[in-house]
């Protein structure tokens, strides 16, 4: 070993304490760099609970209250993408509807919708790539088509929608078969618009995250109606004629009404269990969820107020957009919160909301038959504990604050 001292190894902070000069590392994890884990007790003060108390003998057992699942690793760009993708999808749908049913003098509106769709698709792709751990490998998304993965389906939808929207813009107004191809592409973009607005909800519902999984029947409705509201609101901010205004106003108003109703439905679906509903009710996420509803409701009121002035229109559109954005962020953060709460994972499964819900299996994994609702408590009564001086499982008293020294 000669010149290698332990201090050198520590300085290298390689996390393996191996001198890489002595040989090449080629194992499975050799490229990984070291990272410190989060300290459970950074204050280094006395812990106030006995692990044995907080863990197994608590009413519903868990492993020292540690999360059972991994929190989703996604960052802010993903809920933002939910919003932008929703706008792009709903705008494409509205554009196609205008082409089909609008007639000659609404052509301008169709084009505007396709612009919003195209730009939205591009921004969406940018946001998605930004979130990837290895953005340079984005094209691997197009390597396979996997129907069991909403993310795979969604990438193809996004790619298809982007291609269709762009083609329809490029070929718009051309004569001959190119023009007809452009019209076809506009319709195609409209068809892709539906899944583009809704698949993101399926994507998050199709995870192990308790609150997302539990609200899988209503989340897509929420996302799609919120997409209508946000696309309408955004288009209302762009210059438009009086006829177009009527359409946009109706579109976004209906979207907002549906968004509010779907929001109630989501909350109702989550309320099957207190642990599932908790993140939507309490804390910063709960406030965000409420604020989203308030913004949407305010925007709805401004939208239907008789004799609208210009500022009311702008304020209504802005509030509508804010409401839609906040909705996505609230749902996203509620998912993160519920993933790190072990009880949100365990209790629904004990209540038959795990595999039992789909397969109707009758036995829990500890071999005992499911009875619905299952008691989450330990079945066997607590064995009588002997009162001895060494049975120290009580909570420790908090340390009395030491008097400041003068």
């Amino acid at each position, binding site marked *: 070993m000669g010149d290698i001292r332990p201090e050198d190894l520590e300085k290298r902070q390689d996390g393996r304490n191996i001198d890489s000069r002595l040989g090449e590392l*080629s*194992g*499975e*994890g050799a490229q*990984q760099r070291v*990272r*410190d*884990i989060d300290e*459970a007790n950074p204050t280094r003060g006395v812990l106030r609970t006995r692990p*044995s108390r907080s*863990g197994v*003998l608590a009413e*519903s*057992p*868990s*492993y020292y209250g540690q999360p*059972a699942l*991994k929190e*989703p*690793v996604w960052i802010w760009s993903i809920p933002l993408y939910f919003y932008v993708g929703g706008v792009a999808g709903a705008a494409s749908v*509205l554009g196609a509807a*205008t082409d089909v049913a609008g007639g000659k003098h609404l052509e301008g509106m169709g084009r505007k919708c396709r612009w919003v769709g195209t730009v939205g698709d591009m921004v969406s792709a940018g946001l998605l790539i930004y*979130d*990837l*751990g290895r953005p340079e*490998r*984005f094209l*691997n*998304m197009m390597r396979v088509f996997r129907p069991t993965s909403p*993310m795979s389906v969604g990438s193809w939808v996004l790619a298809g929608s982007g291609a269709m929207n762009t083609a329809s813009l490029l070929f718009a107004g051309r004569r001959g078969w190119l023009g007809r191809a452009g019209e076809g592409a506009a319709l195609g973009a409209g068809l892709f618009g539906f899944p583009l*607005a809704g698949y993101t*909800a*399926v994507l998050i519902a*199709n*995870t*192990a995250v308790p609150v997302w999984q539990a609200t899988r*029947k209503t989340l*897509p*409705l929420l996302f*799609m*109606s919120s997409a209508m509201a946000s696309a309408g609101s955004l288009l209302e901010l762009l210059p438009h004629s009086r*006829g177009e205004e*009527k359409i946009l106003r*109706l*579109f976004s108003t209906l979207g907002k009404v549906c968004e509010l109703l779907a929001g109630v439905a989501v909350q109702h679906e989550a309320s099957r269990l207190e642990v599932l509903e908790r993140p939507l009710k309490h804390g910063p996420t709960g406030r965000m969820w409420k604020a989203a509803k308030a913004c949407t409701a305010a925007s709805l009121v401004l939208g239907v107020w008789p004799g609208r002035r210009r500022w009311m229109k702008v304020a209504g559109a802005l509030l509508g957009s804010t409401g839609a954005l906040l909705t996505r962020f609230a749902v996203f953060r509620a998912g993160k919160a519920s993933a790190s709460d072990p009880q949100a994972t*365990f209790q629904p499964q004990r209540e038959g909301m*795990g*595999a039992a819900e*789909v*397969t109707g299996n009758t*036995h829990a*994994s*500890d*071999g005992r038959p*499911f009875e619905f609702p299952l008691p989450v408590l330990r079945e066997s009564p607590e*064995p009588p*504990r*002997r009162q*001895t001086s*060494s049975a120290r499982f009580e909570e420790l008293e908090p340390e009395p604050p030491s008097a400041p020294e003068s």
Partner: protein
Amino acid sequence: MGQKGFFTDTTLCIGCKACEVACKQWNQLPDDGFRLTGMSYDNTGHLGASTWRHVAFVERPVPLPTQTVGLMDFSWLMSSDVCKHCQRAGCLEACPTGAIIRTEFDTVYVQPDVCNGCGYCVAACPFGVIDRREDDGRAWKCTLCYDRLGEDMTPACAKACPTASIQFGDVDELRERAYRRVAQLHEKGWEQAYLYGADAESQPGTGGLNAFFLLVDKPEVYNLPPDPVVPTMKGKEAWASMGWGALGMAVVALGAVLFGREVTHG
């Protein structure tokens, strides 16, 4: 080749962490910072991107059935956790790039050169196993020593386990062994011993696990979900709901356009 897997008999685990160390050494994974978590003697906490075997230390003020301690009721449960290599793997079904594959040994493997770090597998694993590292962006988890299996070698953790708590082999054979062990424990008075995830009957949500466990308390105590389900089993309802949403959206869009046209014309 056949189905390879682990049978982890937690009643034999002594918490020596040889498996954790062997795994890290073979796979050249970095350490986790040598800090206690502040709970029991567990210094790794949970499975993660750089921890592919994790020994749980469950401290209970409950005696084990055949043991009595003079002064107080107390027992340890120790259990070495690992990726379950599910028959229906949430991570595999979710991965949009095809980076996660089922190998010829019927194990679940992440191909390092394909993963683009989208993180979908992290949210889709019902056991919270796989994780993405910020520093290299890839999703990481136990490979069941894919590189060793190819050479007909035993995975590092099973090789290093001094008490045969971690047993490696053909899943069918392991299952037989596990049933025998449960019967044996029941005879000895350990009535609560049972197998976790041994087959599709006992865990229909995952179709059974290639790495299954013998436990003596509720799964939650070991941080295992009692009735896990691969998310795709429930995903159909979400797709159906999206279909209804699309119908509604079409009606609203067409209705708005027709209405607007009427107004402009009339």
